[in-house]
């Protein structure tokens, strides 16, 4: 690798790791204008790419980025006269630039952290869910627009426009840059966790395309969930989500074989599971449960933990898993959960019992194209001995699937 390429890597890494924190603080100094803060940080990134190869990587890249981004923000404020609160922001930044102490720490929420403000702003319910996801990955994850576009299989300009529109709405609609007040915190936190869950699911269960797992999204969800759980220290569900992501992602190495083929849980080589992640996930779950406020993420994590600690599919505590799905269904009823409960019941009490749980779901027209439902139905029928009916059900699952790897696996099971 050339020296230039190494420096470019260092720039990329520094901005990835420290960029979000720099952005979060700059946005506060700008009176909550995250769009301008982001633009200024991008300018600083361009500056770094131009100067670091020549001058070397600064000793404290974070401090360098803070100064560079602040100067760029001042440039932009001087140029962009349309900016509201321009004078106030300019004054504040110039004072900071002159080395005066930062006296602008006015707290409204219970937690003092700029990154939390940034998270809650990116995940504000006034923004469309897909915009919340894109902004979170962009601003908090430090992913480039191109990377996000690729991960969600949309064209670059589409994703760029989505992000620009969201940033514009934050500024124009006056979405505040702050941690919500205590009374709104549970609801708003749930919104943040939903965004992270969406990111992880999209990575883990890629809905379209040729790849089954989009690792970059899983990694990002993992990193952000750890950050959020750390910032919202006493939130049981934030810890629950972190545990769930760790315990699920731990199986990723065994989920796709060398040929890129999907490997179902019961056939996975459990030695290939990431033991470190399993341990970390189990620890996060224990911490969450100790807080005594159960919730859907903690229950899902508990289910994942049961799978992770079982030596093989046969010696899995399916009765306990079925009971956990029952609790989950009581808390947050959904057909997806019922399908999973039917599978667990099918293993603990036999395929006939599983088919009984599944029956009402098969009547539901809205689930006519729900792949997991038909796949579970087919598996249960096959185990119950109805091979013709099982083949029919596999056909329905194959027809509904949009992921080529998943389809191949269903075809294999249909033939087997």
């Amino acid at each position, binding site marked *: 690798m050339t020296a230039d390429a190494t420096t470019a890597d260092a720039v990329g890494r520094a901005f990835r790791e420290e960029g979000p924190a720099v952005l979060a603080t700059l946005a506060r100094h700008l009176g909550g204008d995250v769009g301008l803060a982001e633009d200024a940080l991008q300018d600083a990134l361009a500056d770094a790419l131009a100067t670091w190869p020549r001058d070397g990587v600064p000793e404290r890249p974070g401090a360098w980025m803070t100064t560079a981004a602040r100067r760029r923000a001042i440039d932009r404020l001087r140029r962009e006269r349309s900016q*509201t609160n321009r004078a106030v922001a300019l004054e504040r930044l110039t004072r900071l630039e002159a080395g005066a102490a930062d006296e602008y720490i006015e707290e409204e929420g219970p937690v003092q952290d700029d990154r939390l403000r940034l998270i809650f702003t990116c995940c*504000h319910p*006034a923004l469309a869910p897909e915009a919340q996801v894109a902004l979170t990955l962009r601003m908090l994850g430090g992913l480039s627009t191109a990377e996000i576009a690729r991960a969600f299989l949309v064209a670059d300009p589409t994703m760029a426009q989505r992000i620009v529109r969201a940033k514009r709405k934050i500024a*124009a*609609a*006056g*979405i*505040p840059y702050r941690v*919500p007040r205590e009374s*709104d915190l549970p609801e708003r936190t749930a919104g943040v966790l939903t965004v992270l869950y969406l990111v992880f699911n999209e990575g883990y269960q890629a809905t379209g395309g040729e790849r089954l797992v989009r690792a970059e999204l899983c990694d990002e969800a993992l990193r952000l969930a750890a950050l959020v759980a750390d910032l919202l220290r006493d939130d049981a569900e934030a810890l629950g989500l972190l545990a769930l992501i760790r315990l699920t992602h731990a199986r990723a190495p065994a989920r796709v074989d060398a040929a890129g083929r999907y490997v179902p849980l019961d056939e996975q080589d459990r030695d290939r599971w990431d033991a470190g992640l399993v341990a970390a996930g189990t620890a996060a779950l224990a911490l969450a449960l100790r807080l005594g406020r159960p919730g859907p993420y903690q229950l899902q994590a508990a289910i994942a933990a049961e799978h992770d600690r079982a030596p093989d599919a046969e010696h899995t505590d399916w009765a306990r898993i079925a009971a956990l799905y029952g609790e989950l269904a009581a808390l947050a009823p959904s057909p997806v959960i019922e399908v999973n409960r039917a599978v667990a019941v099918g293993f603990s009490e036999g395929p006939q019992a599983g088919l009984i749980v599944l029956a009402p779901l098969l009547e539901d027209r809205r689930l006519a194209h729900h792949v997991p439902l038909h796949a579970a139905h087919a598996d249960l029928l096959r185990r119950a001995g109805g091979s013709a009916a099982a083949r029919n059900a596999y056909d329905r699952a194959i027809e509904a699937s949009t992921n080529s790897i998943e389809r191949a696996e269903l075809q294999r099971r249909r033939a087997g």
Partner: protein
Amino acid sequence: MAKYMLLIYLDPEHTPSEETSAEWGKISQELAQAGQMLEGAGLQGIDTATTVRVRDHERLVTDGPFAETRELLGGYYVVDVPDLDVALDWAAKMPNVGRGSVEVRPVLEM
């Protein structure tokens, strides 16, 4: 501070009662007391609406609202509040939100 218009959309199936008008009086008073109301008004029903368009320099006047929708615009408030969250809090207090909806739009600052 920022100005927002709260557009009050009513459920056409719901006939307003004396009780509802008392509720509107109460929320108007609350807004005024908070010093955050710039203006507000209720509108008469859509059967009183007339729509005007000019096409090719010709004035076209038609009876009725500009678009048939499930919900109808019944009134508005303009509030002056610190940020969107406060505007959304007021919106959530409107007597119609249980049946209709409230659209919150920032006012274009000239």
